[in-house]
């Protein structure tokens, strides 16, 4: 499949308004403004577009949940907090194709009846904020956003809002809290953000890549979009490949692709001709899969069948030099650091898990510790306000499930049995 989202990202000045309009940009918005908002939502529903942030929830349905008759203002928030370890696709879209995102935001605002869209960027993306703000100004100067867009009577503003370093801000209700100037901590649901969201108003929250697909659906039609991938997994998809491959990067293809093709064909195979040990297929919060599972289709449904998830399509590849206890410890350090502290099981549990993993990795653990890990993990998963708890335990549980022998070897030999020269030992 030829790239459509990222076809021009390598061109110098390809991110500018002139370049974007030159390649047919903002035609999707023009078309949307000629339709009724409900027709726009119907088109997005018919395309089968599913959220690219991780959950794969149908976008059209999400927009439909926003009450039309509410007297309060409505908001669209673009989740550009991209913080899932291994994920760097939205980074490319925002920096190199910002107007595609703006067009998606504007169409989304029109569909749900919002007049303001906030793009919540992660704190580390200050260079992205500079690009977005400059291009927002350019678009406003030419009348692509602001008052009475294309003479349609539709007013809409877009603002880039930058966070300050918090993984949890990527969780939709925590994102709203952060945007309101508070700690990024999740809210109790219901009510869902579609009804009570930003400033207590109806709010739709969509990922960057999701919104970038919307103009394409308007321009090329929902049938075109659906035909690009397997059934219920249509459209172009960006994959982030990192870790022990020859050519890490962002690659765009359809969801017909398998994990094996992504590693070998796109990622250039395992680095240094070594052998594959395990793959995290959808960002650190998804369970690891083994070399005999990599023929799974890298789609929402294909990876669920393989016992994992597509998540944010962040494929982290580990070769045979990787210690799986070390991997679990590395990711648990991440989750302990990023736990927002609101729910006790997650705040306390991630700290306990890290301590136990560290003990085992250093060769100071006992066989009981391995069961203790599973026990503590079972008291976090499903017992928190947001999916963070489930995410935090996925790497521990899946490495114990697939690599228990490696954990046991650490205990038996009293040392890390798989040290690698790329680690600081």
């Amino acid at each position, binding site marked *: 499949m030829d790239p459509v989202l990222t076809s021009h990202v390598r061109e110098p000045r390809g991110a500018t308004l002139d370049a974007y309009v030159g390649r047919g940009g903002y035609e999707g918005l023009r078309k949307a403004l000629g339709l009724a908002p409900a027709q726009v939502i119907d088109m997005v529903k018919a395309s089968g577009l599913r959220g690219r942030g991780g959950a794969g929830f149908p976008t059209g349905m999400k927009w439909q949940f926003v009450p039309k008759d509410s007297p309060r203002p409505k908001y669209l928030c673009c989740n550009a907090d991209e913080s899932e370890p291994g994920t760097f696709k939205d980074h490319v879209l925002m920096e190199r194709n910002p107007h595609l995102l703006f067009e998606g935001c504007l169409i989304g605002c029109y569909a749900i009846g919002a007049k303001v869209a906030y793009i919540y960027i992660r704190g580390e993306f200050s*260079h992205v904020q500079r690009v977005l703000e400059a291009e927002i100004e350019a678009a406003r100067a030419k009348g692509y956003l602001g008052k009475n867009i294309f003479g349609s009577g539709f007013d809409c503003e877009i603002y880039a809002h930058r966070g*300050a370093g*918090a*993984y949890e801000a990527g969780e939709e209700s925590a994102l709203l809290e952060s945007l309101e*100037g*508070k700690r990024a901590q999740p809210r109790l649901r219901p009510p869902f953000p579609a009804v009570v969201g930003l400033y207590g108003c109806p709010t739709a929250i969509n990922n960057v890549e999701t919104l970038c697909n919307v103009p394409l659906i308007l321009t090329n039609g929902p049938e075109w979009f659906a035909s690009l991938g397997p059934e219920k997994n249509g459209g172009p998809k960006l994959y982030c490949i*990192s870790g*022990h491959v020859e050519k890490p990067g962002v690659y765009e293809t359809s969801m017909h692709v398998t994990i094996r093709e992504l590693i070998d064909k796109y990622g250039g195979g395992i680095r240094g001709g070594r052998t594959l040990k395990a793959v995290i297929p959808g960002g650190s919060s998804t369970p690891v899969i083994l070399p005999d599972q990599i023929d799974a289709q890298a789609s929402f449904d294909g990876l669920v069948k393989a016992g994992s998830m597509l998540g944010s399509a962040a494929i982290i590849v*580990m070769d045979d030099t990787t210690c799986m206890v070390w991997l679990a410890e590395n990711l648990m350090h991440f989750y302990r650091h990023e736990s927002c502290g609101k729910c006790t099981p997650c705040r306390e549990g991630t700290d306990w898990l890290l301590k136990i993993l560290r003990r085992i990795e250093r060769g100071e653990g006992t066989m009981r510790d391995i069961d203790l890990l599973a026990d503590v993990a079972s008291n976090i998963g499903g017992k928190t306000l947001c999916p963070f708890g489930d995410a935090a335990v996925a790497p521990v549980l899946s490495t114990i499930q697939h690599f228990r022998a490696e954990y046991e070897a650490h205990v038996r030999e009293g040392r890390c049995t798989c040290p690698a020269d*790329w680690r600081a030992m």
Partner: protein
Amino acid sequence: MSFHPEMRYESGMHVSQRELRPDGEPFAFTPANRDRLEQIATHYPAEHRRSAVIPALYIVQEQQGYVSAPAIRHVAEVIGCTPAEVDDVVTYYAMFFRQPVGKYVVQVCRTLSCALRGAERVTAEISKTLGISVGETDPTGTFTLMEMECLGACDRAPVVMVNNEHWHECQAPEDAGRLLESLKASGEAALTGCHLEVERD
């Protein structure tokens, strides 16, 4: 009853021995920065000015290098919320410094994709070269070493960020000491920047 050390108690009552963190330098926005903040505040509904707390704290940090307690009180006054609400934000987010830092804050990504490509060794090398641990500032006040969680450029691992803003990609562990030298000599020009800024090439 509060056990706050500054509170005056009647004689015979328990007085906390807890030491508060030093207050830090006094702070007020420069007129230009105050204008910038007011401009940003227009992005949000007037009754939700609190949304501008994070942008305000970024401006504080730009002006002062870190966020002192007087700065927290000043931001609260300017925004129209309580100092506790601002402190809540400062203490939560990883990119706000609550004490003075070195001229260059070297922030090495430590999460999986970077670690698989040698990030642990990058940190170890910098730590050894400077003779400091993670979180510390070298005696000359030039460098502070920090570890960050995933910075979102995993295809260019290991990634290093400097002063919350400037990117440096594909840092080979064995050259990490040299990065410090070139930072000292030529400042941010020593860094690769983000590879997506193709106009730089």
